[in-house]
Every structure is written in structure tokens, then in C-alpha cells.
């Protein structure tokens, strides 16, 4: 009996030790990356620290037998989000070093450090000392043991239990796309106007060009009145003739 227990415990140790080593390495990677994000003055170096931390999180997911989420973590975060960060940093040219000496709120940094340390240590002590209940395990067993594996279980869950949040996610993405388009389009208008003014100023005969639109408007109004005087000859025909007449008149005036 004792021999069986000894063999069993040694087997547990044998399976635990690599996991513990992997966990320690992943935790070191994550914490090193997070320290890099916080400490580095250059935003590009901060983004690289973020990549390191995200790879460590993917390692933790792998350790938790969550292969799909590890792959998604690397693809979405390191492949899309950090690239977006780096693109914005390079695009804006804000990779100059941050002036960290100036504090707008006096004593903010020591206070932030103290509060964060207090909260984290408090939560850790609570987790270590308190007795808490986690709730019941799922009756269906581990996700990896279900038919189709973890990906199928995740898909089944997302498309049945979490269908409404999934649909809300679609709406969220559409709103985000619209927001990004509006935010980047709003600045384009002033520069375009500036470009048009610049091109008009470059023209040698700007006086005749400025005369053109006003005279054509007068001609169009006159044509419309004439059509109105002629009676109900069809609005579509009147509009089309006025549109056709106006450019010819302006071209004649410009030639004169």
C-alpha cells in the first residue's frame, strides 16, 4: 500500500516537474515583457515588450491545453494588434522619448505604485489564505475529451450558448469600422480644400476662371425662367436643356 502510494506520488512529481518548469519560464517571459512595456522610454521598445508578454501568455494557454486559443492569441495579438501599434508609432513618428520628469499631478506615481501594490498584495493574500468555493465542475467533462476536441466544443458553445454576444460582436465590429473610417476621414477635408485653393492660385488666368462659375449660374437661372415662361414643356427636358446650354455659354464667355 505504501509502495503504491510512493509510486503514485513519484509519478505525479514526474508529470508535474516539466509543467512547473514551463510555467516558471512562461511567467518569467510575461513579467519581463510587462516590465519592458512599463519601463521603456521608446514606444517601439514598449511594443516589442508587449510582443514578448503576449507570447508568454500564449505559452500559458498551451500549458493549459488550450492550443486553439494559443494560436489565436499569437495570430490576433502579435499578428494584428501589435502590428497596428507599430504601424501607428512609425506612421506618426512619435518614437521620440517621453518626458517622464514632468508630473501634472504631484505625487501621482508613488501613489499609483502604492495603491497597485496594496491591491495586488491584498488579492494575493485573499487568494492564499481565504477558503473559497469555485462552484461545480461541468458535467460534460473536459473540453478536450469531447467529440471534435476543444475547437469543436468552443464553436458549439459560441454558436449556441453565446449566440447573442456573438451577434453583438458583429455589431461591435461594424461600429468600430465605421468609427475608424469617420475618424480618419474627418481630417481629410481641410487638406483637400487647401489643395484646391493652392491649385486655383497657381493658375495664371484666375480672373477669368473666377468669372466663369458666376456667369454660368446666371445663365442657368435665366434658362430655367425661360423654360417656366414657355409653359409646361416637361421638367425633365427643361432641366436637361439648361444643363446642356450652360457649359457652352461659359465656354463662349471664357473664349471671349
Amino acid at each position, binding site marked *: 500500500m505504501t509502495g503504491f502510494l510512493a509510486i503514485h506520488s513519484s509519478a505525479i512529481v514526474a508529470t508535474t516537474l516539466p509543467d512547473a518548469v514551463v510555467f516558471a519560464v512562461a511567467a518569467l517571459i510575461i513579467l519581463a515583457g510587462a516590465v519592458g512595456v512599463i519601463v521603456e522610454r521608446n514606444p517601439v521598445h514598449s511594443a516589442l515588450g508587449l510582443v514578448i508578454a503576449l507570447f508568454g501568455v500564449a505559452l500559458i494557454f498551451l500549458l*493549459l491545453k488550450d492550443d486553439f486559443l494559443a494560436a489565436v492569441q499569437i495570430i490576433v495579438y502579435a499578428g494584428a494588434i501589435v502590428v497596428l501599434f507599430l504601424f501607428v508609432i512609425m506612421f506618426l513618428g*512619435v518614437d521620440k522619448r517621453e518626458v517622464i520628469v514632468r508630473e501634472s499631478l504631484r505625487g*501621482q506615481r508613488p501613489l499609483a*505604485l502604492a495603491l497597485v501594490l496594496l491591491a495586488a498584495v491584498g488579492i494575493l493574500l485573499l487568494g492564499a489564505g481565504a477558503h473559497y468555493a469555485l462552484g461545480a465542475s461541468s458535467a460534460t467533462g*473536459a*473540453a478536450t475529451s469531447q467529440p471534435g476536441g476543444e475547437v469543436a466544443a*468552443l464553436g458549439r458553445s459560441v454558436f449556441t450558448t453565446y449566440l447573442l454576444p456573438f451577434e453583438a460582436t458583429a455589431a461591435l465590429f461594424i461600429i468600430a469600422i465605421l*468609427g475608424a473610417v469617420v*475618424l480618419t476621414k474627418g481630417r481629410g477635408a481641410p487638406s483637400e480644400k487647401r489643395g484646391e485653393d493652392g491649385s486655383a492660385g497657381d493658375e495664371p488666368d484666375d480672373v477669368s476662371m473666377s468669372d466663369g462659375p458666376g456667369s454660368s449660374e446666371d445663365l442657368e437661372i435665366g434658362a430655367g425662367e425661360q423654360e417656366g415662361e414657355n409653359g409646361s414643356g416637361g421638367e425633365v427636358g427643361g432641366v436637361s436643356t439648361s444643363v446642356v446650354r450652360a457649359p457652352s455659354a461659359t465656354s463662349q464667355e471664357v473664349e471671349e
Partner: protein
Amino acid sequence: MTVSLQWYIGLSVVLFGMGALGLLIRRNVLVMYMCIELMLNAANIAFVAFAEKLNDIGGQAAVFFVLVVAAAEVVVGLGIVVAIFRRRPDATVDDLHMMKG
């Protein structure tokens, strides 16, 4: 899951604390966004650890949605950052007080 749950939660708490610390002490908008990403990842670690402990796929689904929200947030946030930084190239968050009364 041979590493006990407490270690994962401890790592998650420490990572979340570091993200919150960076968010509070840094003045660069982009670095602050990165710190928000760190905090979201800390929450993801806790989600997956609890999901593995309880054999519940809901934790993984929550991580999935957190990823989606993080992507949307980064898109809109970086759009706002680009819109602000185009106008004033050397702005930190202390200079962004347009909405101050």
C-alpha cells in the same frame, strides 16, 4: 492541469497590477493602450485557468470575446490617437484637455 490554480491566478494578478501601474504612471497614449492590453491578457489567463479547472468551455468563449473587444478597441483607439496626433504632434495625455470645462 498539474500546476495548481493559485499559481495561475497569482500570475494573473501580478500581470494585471503591472498593467494598471503602467496605465497610471505612463504619459504616452500608445504605451497606455499597451498597458490596457496587458490587463486584458491578465484577465484572459484567469479565464482560461478557471475554465480548465472547472472543465467549462465558457472560459474559453469569454477569452474569445475579450480578443474581439480588444481588437475593436485598439482600432477605434488608434484612430482617435491618429486624429489627435495629426493636429499636435508632441501631445501627451496631459495636453489633451479639450473637453475640460
